[in-house]
């Protein structure tokens, strides 16, 4: 084979054919909708057409929209409330349960079990716990002579309550990721440290932490991307209230697009969320590289 076809062949390009079905589906289901969404964000459009090109007007409108800015702040706050707690708790649990005992195996399953629940079931359970009318915590408070706390209807408590619920629900997967990373660390390194009489803190700082840093970065980036997309919990527990105090960006986008039919504007808000998630997903990796260089 000669010429450009031969060169391509030598460079292994025909192998690309094996990836072509995946790439085609990826382009069709992800790249095309992404680009279409970007195009839509430049239009004034409703669910059933009527699209008119308006340039960046939707984006300008977004930054003047107090409800959008509140939802943006709520999303940022929610990620800040959830991700550090999730990472620290999941890592702590993984360290504690990284042993071959029956109790550890039971606890691993117990912690992971919550992640198996659908968001609907999970929110029903938590409504029974947090509701002021006959909720478990409300009963507990009354039993000891205290007033019930309106976890879901107090503007200062609604978002933290959703964060607590989310941490409980999402803890299983990051814990498993940390566990699998911990099990990759060779036992011989720990044995050498034991011979050197290293303290547990030194072992954690000098051996465990460097060894699981890629998993730490992965979990942080993944959880940031996931928690920016929170929707089911506020939709089912608080509907974004009271006074928008627990309305995150995805709920805002949903209300704008599907209740108000302002689909071009909702697409613009979606692009903002997309940019935010991209940044949030890259920050941990960037931090890791800078850390290594330092």
């Amino acid at each position, binding site marked *: 084979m000669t010429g450009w076809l031969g060169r391509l062949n030598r460079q292994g390009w025909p192998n690309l054919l094996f990836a072509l079905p995946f790439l085609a589906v990826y382009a069709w289901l992800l790249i095309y909708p992404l680009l279409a969404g970007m195009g839509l964000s430049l239009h004034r459009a409703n669910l059933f057409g*009527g699209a008119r090109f308006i340039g960046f007007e939707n984006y300008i409108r977004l930054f003047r929209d107090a409800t959008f800015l509140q939802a943006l702040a709520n999303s940022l706050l929610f990620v800040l409330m959830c991700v550090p707690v999730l990472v620290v708790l999941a890592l702590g649990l993984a360290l504690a349960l990284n042993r071959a005992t029956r109790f550890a195996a039971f606890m691993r399953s117990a912690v992971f079990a919550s992640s198996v629940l659908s968001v609907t079931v999970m929110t029903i359970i938590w409504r029974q716990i947090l509701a*002021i009318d006959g909720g478990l915590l409300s009963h507990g408070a009354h039993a000891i002579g205290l007033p019930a706390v309106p976890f879901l209807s107090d503007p200062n408590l609604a978002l933290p309550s959703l964060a607590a619920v989310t941490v409980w629900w999402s803890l299983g997967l990051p814990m498993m990721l940390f566990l699998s990373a911990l099990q990759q660390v060779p036992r011989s390194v720990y044995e050498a440290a034991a011979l050197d009489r290293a303290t547990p803190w030194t072992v954690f700082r000098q051996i465990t932490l460097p060894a699981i840093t890629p998993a730490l970065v992965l979990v942080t980036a993944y959880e940031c991307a996931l928690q920016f997309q929170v929707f089911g919990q506020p939709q089912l527990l608080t*509907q974004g209230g*009271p006074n928008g105090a627990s309305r995150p960006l995805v709920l805002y986008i949903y209300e704008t697009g*599907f209740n108000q039919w302002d689909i071009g504007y909702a697409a613009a808000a979606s692009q903002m969320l997309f940019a935010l998630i991209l940044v949030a997903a890259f920050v941990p990796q960037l931090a890791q590289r800078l850390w290594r260089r330092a």
Partner: protein
Amino acid sequence: MRRRALLGGLAGLSLAGCAPKDPRPAITVQRIFGDCRAHVPKGGAPTQNLNGECEIITGLLDRFEAENPDIRLNVNAVAWPGYDQLSAQIAADDAPDLVTMHMAVIPDYQIHGLLTPLDAGLKAQGVTPDQFTPVARRAVTMDGEVYGLPFDAWTQLFHINMNLFARAGLVRGGEPVLPRNAAELLDQARRFRAATGKPYLVQSSVNERAAFARNLYTYLLSAHEVIFPDPHHIRLNTPRAREVVGLFKRIHDERLTTRDLDYVAATTAFINGEGGVYIVGTWMIGNFDNEAAQAGRPLYRGYRVKPYPALFGDPVLPAFVDGHAWVMPKRRRTPEQERAAFRLLKFLSVHEGDWTRSGHLTSMAAVVGDPVYQAQPHRRDLMAITSYGQGLPTDVQRQFAIQAMLSEELAAAITGIKPIDRALTDAERRINDMLTNLS
């Protein structure tokens, strides 16, 4: 033996797939009002809550199916209000044949040409717009054509626990004593609280997307306030609006109402006798009557329902009215399917009177004068609403989204999260931003 049975089963399943196609025209009805098949057996009476919305509509559709064996009826019960699902179905060209729709929502779909005009089809079945009440006819008629079959008219009402009212000395001659102005309301509510230890009002205030807005509409319309100066603008920050919201805030501040309850919790609280007056719609009358008929229950022989009292010395009585209608989304149908859908509409219009057992007001002129309808509980107290009740202009789009935004802001004002003035200004800004950017 086991293998033979398995093979036999598999062969049976394969043959079942070869069954001849059902030749009957199939139509799909999509409705709200809940799912209660568990206690409404097909072809039988409900085993509980005889006059509930869900029980009545389930029974009616079963009856249509039984009386019209030549039509295959698929019923799809969706969660209230069902419009997100409907929009997605229409966008995917998979709309049902008939859908329940609030009259206030019809313009959203009609203006985009998504609904089938019903005049000719209804006329062929002997149903004409002059059979509707004037309020209902106005609400379903756009550009001179009828886009929905009115099924009822509903409004919010004062549902009263007469047993608690009696304890508070608020019953005279068997009738509940209702306030004639805002000061009297506060006075009666304080007396009620002192006598019973319970709040006067039961209200849903958590995750509430409608009730507060409807309260405000009620007292703005009775003052002839122009809420929408044009279809793209709302006017809310007026002295009357501040006065109405201020009254509800005062009731909240003085703990004369329940707090922190969502809709389900508020309904349960009223049923369990946790307050005097529950402000909720006509749709609960059947359920509460059912409670009032059961010995030992807090509402036993102690339930009445009344229109909102006039509190601000207004020229007309207060009532904000909307209604449910049946609409037909546009889609390709065979002539047989279309005829089947109109036969169902005819059936529903004939049995609209049965539907009103739920507590809803009628939207059919003939039913208003029907002695059977008039003999239903509470009708004497409520019938006049069909003549004086007012709705919002039909050329205002996105009325459900407006209601949700307004309720959110009003809840914030009433519960003290933000000042009344700011809440009304914020509601105005949010709603006008949406309305001026409609496409």
